[in-house]
Structure formats: structure tokens, C-alpha cells
């Protein structure tokens, strides 16, 4: 019954505070994910006693000392009046549901009386089955089992004289509506992103993939936050070893709270000290769906719109969702642009330093003259100039990120434009250095993933120093070391640099460029999916089209 309830009210609602109609929608959708698991068996299982007062005392002792927990006492109008107490958390549980569907239902039910006279013992079951018109109601008989549902927004009904209690899904809190993620905007493509409510997010994935093999497995992480973490994958496609490994690593986490998926990300990475992120994070539902279709595992965490995707290769941090929505020539070009700007953002400043320090003979003569001319009168040595400028760019970037919207842009203009221009005019830095550093900064902004951009930024500084010390030779050595380092990284067993290291010729179709969809017959082999075929029919090759076969 619970599974059938879907995402009923897809109408977009702007930020809601309080308990409006929309809050109720959230309550219906955001079901208890951990229901299947119940409470951890380690906790003592105090059974319900027939004495209502005793039960209430116990619950008040456990959770009642907070002012947001409400104990609503009520009496069922029966020949022998039965006292009941409804326990819920104000703000998490929808007052509307409690008023209309619990209290009202219990008030005016004539048949309750006849039932009560007929069978007193089964009153609770009867209320569950015939009286309450709420989508999810469970009968529990342990006091401790009640606590987590109450704290996640459900309402518990305790009855005087019965050793059973009802837990009703009344979840309904303020939530944010679905809108386009700002960090991963697209020109063409679906404009939906994840929100902070887990159930909305898993429902979004389901809306895309109507496959019975789609699995949504919920794990609970965090001793105190008890956050729900959902693994989303296609059972007949995803590599079972990866799924198992994800579950194992999530299970090993013993932390008091999970604020955001980044905490999980750091706890389950293959290399704990890795410079590069080895798990992808995204706010876009379509990216998770695409990843799941490729045989990867999506990890959606409650209370954050950022989902994680594992395994991932290095190159994928430079793929944008849009690459798959534009036609392939455009996508191919975009990829090439992005990867060349990755190269520039990593190497441009250090190459500039290395060439002008050690091998000016490599620079074409007119350019070399220009370079020497522009540096005339500049008081700093070149490497210091580059390092200072890089540092300045970082500071401007950070300052504009911290300031609220319009002010941030001002900082960008003042910092980048005015300061740069003034510094060049004052003869503090050479124009060419400004060009190099600014170009590097712009290149680094093309990375669709923030995490890997930071890694590249961090690497740029040591590379400038290496170039200063060892010139091109130093850069070559640093590149070898970097290559060995990154090639050794695994993301849930998948080599980080694949499909290039090790070579997977089939997967290169979708790497530095993207070929048309009809040419990508197989899923990426790097992830070792169970089902490698993406298209069953053999697509025609271009030469076959040419020959008209």
C-alpha cells in the first residue's frame, strides 16, 4: 500500500514555512524510510503497559522534556470511555492530518461503539483497519520503537488499557520545492534538481526509470541524526561488487551525525587522503539517472540536495549533463574545449615560468621580444609575479564567493578589472603575466565539478615552484609523479584514469569527446556492469550508411 503512494502533488511550490497544504504533501510523500528497519535491536525493548499513564510517563521521561513534543490527551466516547494520548513533534507532524484524520475520525464514529461492544480486545486493530483514513498506520507494542517514528514526524496514539499503540504517518514539514540547481544549470535539458527531502529525490529517479530492477535501498547512518541514506541502482546492470562495497563502507561509518553527503563522501572514499575527489556529487536528478543507467550506484542522502555517484573516473568530473542533450558535434566540441582548458588551467602558469626562465629559445622570436619588452621595469622576478597574481586571483574568488550576490560581482569587477589594470599601469606586473593568470583562472572555471577544480587549483602552486626549480624537466618529472599517483587511485575498484589508463578502447567514444548516441552500443566497460549492452540492435556504422547498406 505504501509503495503505491507516489509523488502526488507535483505542482511547484515556493518556499513554504509553516504548515500549509503543501506541508501535508510533504508528509504524504516523505514516508518513513526506516520503517522496514525499525529501531535497532540493541535498544532495550520496553513493552507497552496497559496503564496509559505509565506509558506516557515513560515517553515523557525519554522525549517529553523538550517543548516541541506534544502530548494530546483525548477521550474516546465509548460506553466505557477510553483515554488516549496522541504524541507528535510540533513542526514535523502535520497538524492538519492530526486534526482531520486522527482526532476527527476518532470522534464521530458510530460503528466504533458497536464494534467496541462486540469485541473490546481488538479495538486498536479495528481503529487501524476501519477508522483511520491515513495511508500508513502501524501497530507497535514496544515503547522504545515508538520514539524514532515520533522524532521523524509521525504521530503515535496510545490507548488506555491496551498494550498496543498506533503509529500514523503524519509527516509534513516545511520544504523547498523542486527547482533548477544553480550550480549545474543547463541550456538544454530537464530543469529539475534534488531537494532536501529524500523521498522526493528517490521519487524523481523513479519517475525516470520505470524499471522493476531499480532498487532503492535505505541505510541509516549517524548515531544521533539517524539520517536515511538511499542507494539507487539497477540490480541487473550495476556491478554487485560495487553495490556490496558501498553498503559495507556505509555500514562501517560510526559518526554522530551526517550533515551533508560530503561527510559520507569523505568517509567512504577509497583513498582517504586523496587529492582528487573519487566520488562524484551532483544536484541534478538526471545525472544520477544517467549514472544509474550506466551501472553506477547513486547515493542519496536525506537533508541535502547533493547526491553522490560511485564509481567515477577522473575524466567524468569534466563531463557536464548537457553533453548528452546537445547534438553530438556540439557536445564533442564542448568536451574538447573543457579538456583543453583543464590542461591550461593546470599547466599554463608553470609552463610560462619554465619557458621564460630556462628555455626562452623555445618561444618564437616575436613573442619572446614581446615578453621581454612587457617585463621591462617590473620589479618582481617572474615566478613571484605569477605566484602573487595567482594568489590574488584566489583571494578575489574567495571574497566574491563569500559576499552576497550583487556585492560579489562588484568584488569581481573591482578585483579583476580595476586592480589588474592599475597594477599593470603602475608597472607592478607585466601585462603578459596578467593575461596568463587571467586565462588560467577562466580555464579553471570551465570545470563542471567544483571539487576537482579545487584539486587542480591546489596543484597549480607546486607546479609553478617545480617549474621555477627544474624548468621543463621539473614539469616532466612532476607530471610523471602525478601520473603514477592518479593512476594508482581507485574509485570503488575502478581505475581513476580509465578509459585511458588502462586503455578501454570502447569507452573512449565517450571521454574527451562524445560520439553520436547510435554509435555508443555498450555501457562503459570501465565500471564492469553486469549488462554491457546499451543498444540491442546493432547500430549502423557511418561506412554502412555511406554504402547505403
Amino acid at each position: 500500500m505504501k509503495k503505491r503512494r507516489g509523488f502526488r502533488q507535483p505542482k511547484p511550490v515556493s518556499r513554504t514555512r509553516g504548515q500549509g497544504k503543501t506541508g501535508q504533501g510533504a508528509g504524504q510523500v516523505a514516508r518513513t524510510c526506516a520503517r522496514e528497519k525499525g529501531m535497532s535491536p540493541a535498544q532495550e525493548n520496553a513493552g507497552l503497559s496497559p496503564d496509559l499513564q505509565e506509558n506516557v510517563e515513560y515517553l515523557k521521561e525519554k522525549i517529553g522534556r523538550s517543548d516541541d513534543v506534544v502530548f494530546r490527551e483525548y477521550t474516546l466516547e465509548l460506553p466505557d470511555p477510553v483515554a488516549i494520548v496522541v504524541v507528535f513533534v510540533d513542526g514535523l507532524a502535520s497538524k492538519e492530518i492530526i486534526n482531520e484524520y486522527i482526532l476527527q475520525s476518532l470522534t464521530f464514529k458510530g460503528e466504533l461503539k458497536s464494534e467496541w461492544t462486540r469485541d473490546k480486545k481488538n479495538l486498536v486493530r479495528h481503529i487501524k483497519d476501519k477508522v483511520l483514513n491515513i495511508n500508513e498506520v502501524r501497530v507497535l507494542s514496544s515503547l522504545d520503537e515508538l520514539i524514532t517514528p515520533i522524532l521523524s514526524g509521525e504521530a503515535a496514539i496510545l490507548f488506555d488499557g491496551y498494550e498496543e499503540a498506533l503509529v500514523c504517518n503524519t509527516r509534513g514539514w516545511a520544504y523547498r520545492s523542486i527547482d533548477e540547481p544553480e550550480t549545474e544549470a543547463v541550456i538544454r535539458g530537464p530543469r529539475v534538481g534534488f531537494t532536501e527531502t529524500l523521498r522526493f529525490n528517490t521519487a524523481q529517479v523513479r519517475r525516470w526509470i520505470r524499471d522493476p530492477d531499480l532498487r532503492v535501498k535505505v541505510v541509516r547512518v549517524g548515531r544521533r541524526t539517524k539520517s536515511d541514506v538511499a542507494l539507487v541502482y539497477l540490480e541487473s546492470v550495476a556491478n554487485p561488487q560495487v553495490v556490496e562495497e558501498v553498503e559495507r563502507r556505509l555500514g562501517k561509518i560510526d559518526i554522530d551525525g551526517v550533515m551533508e553527503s560530503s561527510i559520507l563522501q569523505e568517509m567512504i572514499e577509497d583513498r582517504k587522503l586523496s587529492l582528487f575527489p573519487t566520488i562524484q556529487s551532483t544536484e541534478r536528478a538526471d545525472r544520477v539517472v544517467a549514472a544509474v543507467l550506466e551501472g553506477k550506484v547513486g547515493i542519496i542522502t536525506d537533508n541535502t540536495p547533493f547526491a553522490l555517484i560511485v564509481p567515477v573516473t577522473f575524466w567524468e568530473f569534466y563531463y557536464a549533463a548537457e553533453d548528452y542533450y546537445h547534438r553530438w558535434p556540439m557536445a564533442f566540441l564542448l568536451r574538447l574545449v573543457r579538456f583543453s582548458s583543464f590542461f591550461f588551467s593546470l599547466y599554463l602558469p608553470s609552463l610560462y615560468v619554465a619557458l621564460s626562465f630556462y628555455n626562452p629559445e623555445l618561444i618564437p622570436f616575436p613573442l619572446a621580444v614581446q615578453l621581454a619588452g612587457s617585463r621591462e621595469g617590473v620589479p618582481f622576478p617572474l615566478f613571484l609575479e605569477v605566484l602573487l597574481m595567482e594568489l590574488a586571483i584566489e583571494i578575489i574568488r574567495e571574497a566574491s564567493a563569500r559576499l552576497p550576490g550583487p556585492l560579489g560581482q562588484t568584488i569581481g569587477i573591482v578585483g579583476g578589472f580595476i586592480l589588474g589594470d592599475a597594477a599593470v599601469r603602475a608597472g607592478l606586473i607585466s601585462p603578459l603575466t596578467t593575461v596568463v593568470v587571467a586565462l588560467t583562472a577562466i580555464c579553471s572555471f570551465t570545470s563542471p565539478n567544483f571539487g576537482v577544480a579545487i584539486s587542480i587549483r591546489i596543484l597549480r602552486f607546486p607546479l609553478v615552484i617545480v617549474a621555477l626549480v627544474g624548468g621543463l624537466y621539473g614539469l616532466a618529472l612532476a607530471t610523471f609523479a602525478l601520473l603514477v599517483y592518479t593512476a594508482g587511485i581507485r574509485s570503488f575498484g575502478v581505475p581513476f584514469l580509465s578509459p585511458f589508463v588502462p586503455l578501454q578502447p570502447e569507452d573512449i567514444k565517450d571521454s574527451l569527446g562524445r560520439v553520436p548516441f547510435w554509435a555508443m552500443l555498450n555501457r562503459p566497460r570501465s565500471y564492469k556492469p553486469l549488462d554491457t549492452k546499451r543498444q540491442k540492435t546493432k547500430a549502423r556504422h557511418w561506412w554502412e550508411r555511406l554504402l547505403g547498406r
Partner: protein
Amino acid sequence: MSKTTMFLSSRQIILLILGLSIGGGNLLLPGRVARVFGTGGWILVLAAGLIFIFAAWICACLGRIFPGETVVEFSRRLLGRPLGFLTGLVVVLFFLLYIPVEIRILQELVNISILRRAPSWFVSSTFFLVLAYATATDFETLAQVNEVLIEITLIVGLMVTLFGWRFFDPSHLQPVFSVEEMNLAKFWEEAGMILGFTGYPLLLLVFPFVRRHRSLPRAAVFAVTLVVLTYAFFTITTLGVFGWNEVAGQAWPGLELAKAVNFEVVILERLDMILIVSWLGAIFTTCFLAYHFAVSGLSRLFNLRSHSPLVWGLAPVIYYLSTILTNYFAWNKWLSYLSVLAVFVGVVLPVFLLFVAGLRRWLGSSGDTGED
């Protein structure tokens, strides 16, 4: 989740052999053969190549007979404990002694091209540091890094060679046989060229990691053939562009060729830098493969568990050895002696081991023929 055992595909084995074969010495090769054999140097390359192709085939056949064992183990079983131990030690020594001289070649290459006037200790020590760091990682990573670097090197090298054909003059190759008789003393001086062919002895140490032993001989023969053909092509081009007389006088004919074919592109004035940088990669692969096999052979010889402490343990020794070779004459002599070792490890030893294995099987009765 990380795999405990890795398996090498045929492609990886081919690239491993290429990675170990193609190193610093190749840039010197045309000069060496020109000095020994004049205009017909490329024939010398082909002829020598044939021998090594055959030897590589024999090496790979040993792998079919002893799958799952390295030379350290099966030579012990074939020749008895002390002699087998000695054989293993010689193989390890070959790889170990290869590294210092490659470091020297690299240092000289760097000092004459991209980092002039840099102190030699700086170049060799920084390279060695990166080398030791690389070798300390696992073999799987090394094999993968080797793939990339050697592919880049091959492509760049072939491109340079192909561009060289713009200046190719067939008359430079005539007469085909210009040398009256082989001067053995001269050959001894230039014997280092043999090392360019002997990447395949690494097979002796990778048998346990090979997935399909059946295709091993084919892969080995293919790899060495590729090496030989590349060298021959390179030698013909260099001789054809410069003429043997000029090549014989050059220390680094490979570099000269790159400089000669150079054409100006918009961003870089000299394209030969690309060749040099990619060749640094080739030397890097040669070194870390040699280092890895030396260390893994040693750890097998002494039954050690992990090899990365051994890498750092051997580092001072290798670095010290590299400092001994202060100039061209010193390291050239080292190369000559090393090539004797290479011939022993690469040709004599496999033939001998195969012979002993065959003999044992023929005698049969002892039962311990290694076929298990």
C-alpha cells in the same frame, strides 16, 4: 575491493617489453651502428634483431612450461638450490645495474638540452626520487602508467622519424656494405646498443601474472619484432638524412634528427623539445620497470613479503652506483659490460634453461620436470 592479484593481457606484455626496451640508449643507436657497420648499419640492427626475436620466443616458451613460476623458482628446481639461486641473482643484477646507467643517460640528455648548466646531482637525484616513488607503488599501476608513456613516446618518435623523410637521401645509404671487416674492439665500445633489444628478459619474472600462457610466445615475438622494426626504421632514416659519416660523429643522432626535421609552429619554436620530453618518459618507464623487476626478483629470492621497503632500501645503492659513472666513457664502458650480462640473461640463460628442462623431461624418470 582492490584486487590482490592482477593479470597481464597480451597487449600489456607487449607494452611492458616495449617500455623496458625503449629507453635512453635509442637516441644513441644510429651513431653506434654507423660507427660499427657504416652505411649498412640498419642491416646490423635487423640481423641482431632476428637473434633477439628468437631468444624472446624461447623465453616465452619457458613461460608455457612453467606457468605460475618466475625464473627464481623454476631455475632452483631445474638447476638445484645454489645454482638456481645464482641464476636468480644474475637476472636481478641485470635489472639492477640497468638503472644507474639509464639515470646517467637521462642526466646527460637533460643537461645538453632542456636544463643546461644544472648540476648533475640535481637532475639525477630529483629523477631518482620520482623513480623510487613510482616503483614503490603496485605493479598494476606501473603497468598502466607504462602503457601511456610508451605509447606517447612511440607516437612522437615515429612522427619525428616520418618527418625526417623530407630530407631523406637514398644515396646516403650506398654502398650498402661499406665496412671491410667488423672491428671487434669498436664493437665492444658500442656494445651498449644490445640493451635496446633486451627488454624481453622481464618475461622471466612475469609468468605468474600472465593470464593466457598460450599466447605468450606470440606476444613476445610481436613485441621484439616491433622494437626491431622501429629501430631499423629509425636507423635507416637517420643514416639517410645525415649520411653515415656524419651520424658516426654525432653523440645523439636522435636529437640531431629531431632538430633537423624541426619546423616552426606558432607556439613553440623548437619541436625537438617534445621528443626530449617524451623520451624522458621512455627512460622513466625503462627505469621503473627495471627497478620493479629487480626488487620483485630480490623479494622472491629472499622470500620477502612487501617490496616497497626494499625499493627505498636499495635506493642509496643505486644512486651511489649512478654517481660513479661520471662521464660518457665511464657509463659507456658500464653499458658494454652490462650488455654481456644482457646477452647472458636474454639469450644464453633461456636457451640453457630450456635445454635443461627438455633434458629433464627426456630423462623423464625423475618426475620433477616442472610440468605441473
